[in-house]
């Protein structure tokens, strides 16, 4: 056996870091601050999840394990209606936002430079910076002003608008890293503009589009302020329903709903992240 001793990259890096490198972990108090951060972020969430399985009527005092609250949630028709509203609004709004964001990204990156390009980009990304309450109030005033009252329709329009930047960013990132040479090769091989898009641009862009769709979807599902202000009777979404329950009094039923929402968010964000990461690995 003539095996040589090899150092794994991680070991190599560790050895490199050795003595001289600046290590942020050595600053006094850094470790404690990190632990405090984790405590305050995750302890409430952990408690929320744990007490959703509480057998008693209390959201703070543990008695025994049970799935009663989940059964109650499943049987509650108000919750079902709110969940359905959330699903419709998020589904339609995120699809629209993703389609618009895809065209916007194509125009920005592949359309060649045009006048006011920077301005267009800033306008597109504005909802990321403008406080949500401002957008909500502006929407309400605008909808009232033009007399538009489509119920869920109003909510879908509002969600589409503020979801566009969330869909745009991953699509744009993917497109930026996509060399135009593939599209040129397609054109060289007798594909006209539409077929170049369909056979080459779109499949190569798909991971970005999917990630954008999921981010937009979850942003819409999680939204509270805009849904509250723009919504009307009958457009109650899940976050608003949860909030209304709290005002009646906290029972483990809220914990159960919140845990379900948390689970959905977690799944979607993980998927978006996984897709984006997998597409980074391929060219």
């Amino acid at each position, binding site marked *: 056996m003539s095996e040589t001793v090899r150092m794994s990259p991680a070991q190599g890096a560790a050895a490199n870091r050795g003595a001289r490198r600046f290590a942020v972990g050595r600053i006094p108090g850094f470790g404690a601050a990190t632990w405090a951060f984790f405590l305050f972020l995750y302890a409430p969430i952990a408690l929320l999840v744990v007490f959703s399985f509480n057998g008693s009527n209390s959201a703070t005092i543990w008695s025994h394990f049970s799935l009663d609250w989940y059964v109650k949630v499943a049987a509650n028709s108000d919750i079902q209606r709110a969940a359905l509203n959330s699903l419709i609004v998020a589904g339609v709004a995120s699809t629209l936002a993703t389609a618009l964001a895809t065209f916007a990204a194509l125009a920005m990156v592949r359309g060649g*430079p045009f006048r006011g390009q920077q301005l267009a980009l800033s306008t597109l990304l504005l909802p990321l910076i403008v406080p949500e309450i401002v957008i909500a109030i502006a929407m309400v005033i605008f909808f009232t002003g033009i007399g538009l009252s489509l119920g869920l329709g109003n909510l879908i329009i509002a969600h589409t608008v503020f979801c566009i930047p969330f869909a745009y960013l991953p699509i744009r990132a993917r497109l930026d890293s996509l*060399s135009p*040479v*593939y599209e*040129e*090769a*397609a*054109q*060289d*091989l*007798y*594909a*006209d503009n539409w*077929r170049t898009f369909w*056979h*080459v641009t779109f*499949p*190569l862009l798909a991971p970005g589009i999917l990630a954008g769709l999921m981010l937009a979807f979850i942003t819409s599902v999680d939204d509270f302020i805009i849904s509250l202000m723009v919504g009307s009777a009958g457009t109650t979404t899940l976050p608003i329903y949860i909030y209304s329950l709290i005002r009646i009094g906290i029972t483990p039923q809220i914990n159960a709903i919140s845990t379900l929402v948390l689970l959905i968010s977690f799944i979607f964000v993980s998927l978006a992240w996984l897709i984006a990461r997998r597409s980074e690995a*391929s*060219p």
Partner: protein
Amino acid sequence: MTGERASPAGTVSGAGLVIRRVTKVFDAAGSQAVRAVDDLSLEIGENEFFTLLGPSGCGKTTLLRMIAGLEQPTSGEVLLDGDPLQGLPPYRRPINTVFQSYALFPHMSVGENVAFGLKMRGLDSAVIARKVEEVLALVRLEGLAERRPAQLSGGQQQRVALARALANEPKILLLDEPLSALDLKLRKQMRLELKRLQKATGITFIFVTHDQEEALIMSDRVAVLSEGRVLQLGPPEEIYQRPRSRFVADFIGDTNIILGRPKDAERLVLGGTAELRFAAPVLPSDGQDQALSVAIRPESCRLVNGAAYDDLANVFEGRVREIEYLGADTCVLLDVEALGASITVRLRNTEGAAVPPQEGETVRVSLPAAALWVLEP
């Protein structure tokens, strides 16, 4: 204004590609305009292996992209078999490209990549399948049709790119430095392979490279480019043996360059009393005081020893400055006072050849009159 252009019928020579006075200016906002291709004209015949050779940034890729239709000329025109290509998008031109980075579609298998052009042209799927198999065999990639491009080696990817372009049986195949990403051994093998494919298919190849050796080995004709212009155009032997200008001479192989003034049509005066004789009256005898550059290849120079040099013309004494052993050859660098220049002599290291001199030794070098030529000023 009617006489401004000659009638097309009179100027178009028929089959092949004609590039007529094409200029491409890149006019990026905020930076200086770049003249990538400058009033360039070329005629490339059918079934020709034509090479565009030039240093980085001389406009080779830009010229190819204008032929492919991926870039529009600022002025001038490109004609194929007498028809102007102006305004035709890339997908309407019977021209295919092997891109420098290969540009294989990463989401398709090798077979799908090769079939892409045929599919876009709406061919029957049975015909496509047969053609794909045939072309993959031609580039020696049988049995790899199911693989993804990422699962292939660089050389294999290069051949897929070639197969994808050849499958369409274009009139012209454009190859943009297709070998530059390969290692030396594979590159040498692919040179022969490309040459074989060109002969086998009868397709016109327009090949871009900045490697002079590659250009000389493969081409029927070579155009040497610099700063968007053609400096010299001709078969490889002519380009190598008689480069017209100093730029071409330096770019292709090593060259000794000697400065002097013509005495008459056959003799050049070098500094003091030394003279360089030519085999024929090639020197311009009118402009007396005009300095000229003449050139000779290192392998044409000879080292001559004591006895038998009297009957040789152009023999000078020089001191050996440096010896460079290259395996098959040895290069001897001499300082030759009479020429006011350094001369490199390239000797073959054959069995029984004379032992090369030592550094610091004084030797005699002969510059055969027939091997000298005059460079354009």
